[in-house]
């Protein structure tokens, strides 16, 4: 299974895991990271995901430029 097929099958769970693993939306309420991510505000989650990926792309581009 390639990454696209994997994403089509597990996309939203992958996305939830990606958000939960960051622990950005964790609160000290006795719930785990997955439950806290689910309860987080969607707008904030999407902004975070978008910004994080932009940041990673920017860093990857920087390293690529060093190899040229």
């Amino acid at each position, binding site marked *: 299974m390639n*990454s*696209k097929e994997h*994403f089509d099958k597990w*996309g*939203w769970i*992958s*996305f*939830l895991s*990606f*958000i939960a693993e960051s622990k950005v939306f964790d609160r000290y309420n006795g719930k785990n990271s997955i439950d806290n*991510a*689910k*309860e*987080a*505000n*969607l*707008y*904030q*989650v*999407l902004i975070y*995901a*978008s910004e994080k*990926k*932009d940041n*990673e*792309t920017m860093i*990857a581009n920087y390293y*690529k430029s060093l190899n040229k």
Partner: protein
Amino acid sequence: MLFTFEGNTYNYPSTLAEMSLRQRIDFQQTYGAELEAKRIEIAEMPDGDLKENELEYWGVLLAVKTFSFLTGIPFEKASKEISLYDIMDIYYDHMATLFAEPTGKPKNEFTWNGVLWELCNPIMTHDNKITFNEFLLGKEVMRQMLALGKGKWDAMPYLCAIYLRPKGEQFEEAKVNERLEMMLDLPMDIALQVGFFLTSLMTVYSKAFQSFRTAATAPAA
């Protein structure tokens, strides 16, 4: 509206408020999917008289099947014993609009069964109250329905149960299953507003999600 035939009176819905989501789903399962498939088949035919004839026949079939479904008069009886002129008249005057895309300004609040129900604002701003879980559940319902070969109408009761709530109520996953049966009786004028809302919501969020998806599936450099 009432239609009298052979001494019997048949009642059929002529406004969206009189038609339930359950009826729309039943129509889709009984005739809708088959009619859609036929329409696609005709659209792929080469232009010409044959295509025109097929299209006209399809239009008549749509009217008679819709008439039969909404009045409850069996298709065989309706097609053989009731004047086609009468059927076409009733279909175009009262029934065709029930299946047309709604127009006008979208609404966010509705009174149903004496309760004020609310849809969240789909516009993406910092004060939007939609949780990540509501979005994930909606997308998962659609993904699973498509995987099972079902269409958007089968998913609508779930989506209505997720996104339509009594005004002021917070989202609770447990209430989705509780309200599924109730949502089947949702009048179509409200169900179509949920459809409007979802289209706006998914367009906005799909754009935001696309950047994540592209990055996540891109081959490693």
